[in-house]
């Protein structure tokens, strides 16, 4: 009995030792910096440093909630992310399934590469691609579509009403390639015997997708969604700051928490308040993961992450 457990331990030791590099990385990168969370509750003084700066209680947090923008930016952050999660998933899964239905291997590879290219472009470059379309004086939409049709050019960067659509479109265009490849990898991992069985049972293409492919994708979808839900309080800074070219007029619909904090802090240079915003984001993000996981557990226990 004892011998067995020692041998068992030895075997596991080898496994654990493989974990060390990753664990060290996590500790250095993710755990040690947590000491810095205290800055959120301090009036940071450079000459005194992190440990000796005076405590200020919750006063660093008040600006987040006192301002009229607080509601706006929280709403923007949540709703955009929600739209991204739902539309992004639907779009990416659809693309993954379509890729799988393609017969030609060459076409499959070509499409994957084409889909992935937007994902690899920097947001700054994307912002100029968007600008090329939307510029008031020289943009494609104003000059090549609206003016020839006799319509008046639209000053896109001062009209908030269009931006929820523009931002969602840009996000989907940029991100779908990456996530569809993840789903595609799962799809091709589905046991082909299941499809054969379905064909024998007389299932058509739609039925095969509905009854075989989608159930096979379920776990991946749930995992990916849970991961995104955990980041629902974070926003893609590049998307919301670079793409609208930081146009003040659009603030109501483009200001997310990250953008607000960035703008406030480059202008106010207050380390305490930026930490407070980061702290608030991570706490809420953490609760969202717990909540989402709880819901998943209620519906389908096996799919829950923990």
């Amino acid at each position, binding site marked *: 009995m004892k011998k067995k457990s020692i041998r068992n331990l030895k075997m596991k030791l080898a496994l654990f030792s493989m974990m060390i590099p990753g664990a060290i990385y996590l500790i250095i990168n993710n755990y040690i910096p947590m000491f810095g969370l205290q800055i959120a509750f301090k009036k940071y003084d450079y000459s005194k440093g992190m440990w000796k700066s005076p405590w200020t209680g919750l006063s660093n947090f008040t600006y987040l909630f*006192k301002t009229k923008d607080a509601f706006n930016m929280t709403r923007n952050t949540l709703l955009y992310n929600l739209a991204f999660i739902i539309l992004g998933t639907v779009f990416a899964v659809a693309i993954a399934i379509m890729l799988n239905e393609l017969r030609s291997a060459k076409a499959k590879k070509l499409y994957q590469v084409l889909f992935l290219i937007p994902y690899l472009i920097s947001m700054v470059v994307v912002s100029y691609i968007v600008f090329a379309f939307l510029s008031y004086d020289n943009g494609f939409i104003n000059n090549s579509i609206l003016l020839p049709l006799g319509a008046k050019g639209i000053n896109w960067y001062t009209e908030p009403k269009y931006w929820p659509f523009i931002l969602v479109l840009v996000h989907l265009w940029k991100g779908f390639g990456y996530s569809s490849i993840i789903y595609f990898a799962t799809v091709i991992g589905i046991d082909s015997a299941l499809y054969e069985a379905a064909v024998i049972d007389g299932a058509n293409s739609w039925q095969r997708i509905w009854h075989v492919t989608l159930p096979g994708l379920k776990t991946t979808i749930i995992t990916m969604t849970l991961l995104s839900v955990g980041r629902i309080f974070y926003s893609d800074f590049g998307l919301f700051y670079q793409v609208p070219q930081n146009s003040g007029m659009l603030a109501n619909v483009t200001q997310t928490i990250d953008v607000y904090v960035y703008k406030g802090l480059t202008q106010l240079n207050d380390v305490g308040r930026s930490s407070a915003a980061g702290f608030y984001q991570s706490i809420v993000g953490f609760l969202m993961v717990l909540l989402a996981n709880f819901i998943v557990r209620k519906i389908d226990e096996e799919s829950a992450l923990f």
Partner: protein
Amino acid sequence: MKLKKLLGGLLAASMVLSLAACGGGDGDSQTGGNAGGSTGGAVSGTEAGGSAGGAAANGEMPVVKAALPGVLDMTDYPLVQEEMNKILGEKYGIQVEFTFIGMGSWQQQTNLLLTGSDVDMIAYFQLPLNTFVSNGQCTNLDDYVANASDEFKALFTEEQMNGCKINGVQYAIPNLRNYGNDFIMLCDEAKLTELGYKAEDIKTMDDAEEVLYAAHEKYPDIYTVVPQSNATFVNGWTWDGLGDQNYIGVIGNCGQDTTVTDIFENPDFIEFCTRTHKWFEDGLMMGDALSNQETGNVQVQNGAAFAYFANSSNAAPPAGLTKSVIVSNWTDSTNISALTYGINPLSTQPDAAWTLLEALYTDTDLMTLLIDGIEGTHYVMNDDGSCSYPEGVTSSSSTYGNATCYWAMPYAVGVPPITDLGSPTFFDDLVEFNNASKVSKGAGFVLDTDAMGITDEYAACLSVKDKYYNGLMNGILDPETVMAQAHQEMVDSGIEKICEAKQAALDELLK
């Protein structure tokens, strides 16, 4: 159970390991110097092997690390540093190690530098001096200034020195720039002549408007007016933000009014934006101004635009452009402390840092080296006392392009000005320009939002102001409808409380 213990043990072990690794890292950054400065766009002083060797040979001479804004290409700075160290070692018993940091990364990099002792002397720049003081990033210089040489004390007027005091303490020394600003219109010289106008005849906004409409008529295919840079139509005008370049609560009339109001109900501002909106409607303005990434200067020189408005010192306009003063020379409450020099409170050798700082304000040889570079290599002297780039070299191709960036360096009177600046007596003229400038009644105003209890309101108002200010200035938004809406949003964000607090502080100041 065992599994958990093992896991715990592993975690603890890796914790110890990584702590040790971090400790080692800290040690490295202390001795290596410039750990913060060597990342990104900065050129770090440690590459200058010559000076380090010199310091070692000279025994215990302290090496002062100085961080300065670097605008153009500064690849030859180690040579200059070496030359300066010869003088510094001989006359002052110190050595210097420069770090030039580009404007774009200045804020982030200096913020990091100021968390440790890797910099001794530093420029305070791009944020209000008060912010640096309240963050504990400035040293009290009262004693140093009191014991400074008479030569140093004579450099600035009392008013100018007071501009860098916060709560009565001298935290920094102003550098030599134009504290006052003319607000000018710059036009394409050839086109202006063709239109039959003379730059010196344009004195008011009405004159300017006449010229602009004429230009629009004749050159309909180019922009008539473009922003000064990026989305900023013009960097200031006649309103003064009272210790605040964000203009949250202003006084108008070149700082001569004494009633603090919201920028969106300031008559000067409303008049300005009404005019620019008319220009916009008539097709004179740039429709993409809010996403513009270029300077007006470049656009006019490229022939893509006819004119732009700007703030300006007494310097000559850029080549091919004319300059017409619309609002004459006044100093707003933040100008004097907009770029200052001081000492990092974490510096281990503040005395040596002060020695360097004082030398860079008073020793003409050092100042000339720092600004113009090495004679023969980076500049050649002219007979009239000015200097030029060596043949075939321009400000942008020079390997030590600091001569036109005197405005970011500590002091320059006595230094031969580069011919680009327009006059052999440029620096003396600059001092005169500053002394003749009409000073805002808000001069010396310190905006301490924490002490005034308006930090949250200020942050909220700032985001409202950001929303409308540039759009209105560039004429894209219609003031008729937007101005009232913007003002209402400011009121909702607490502008009234800010104005009250600023008014009280201003009244106190004017007593």
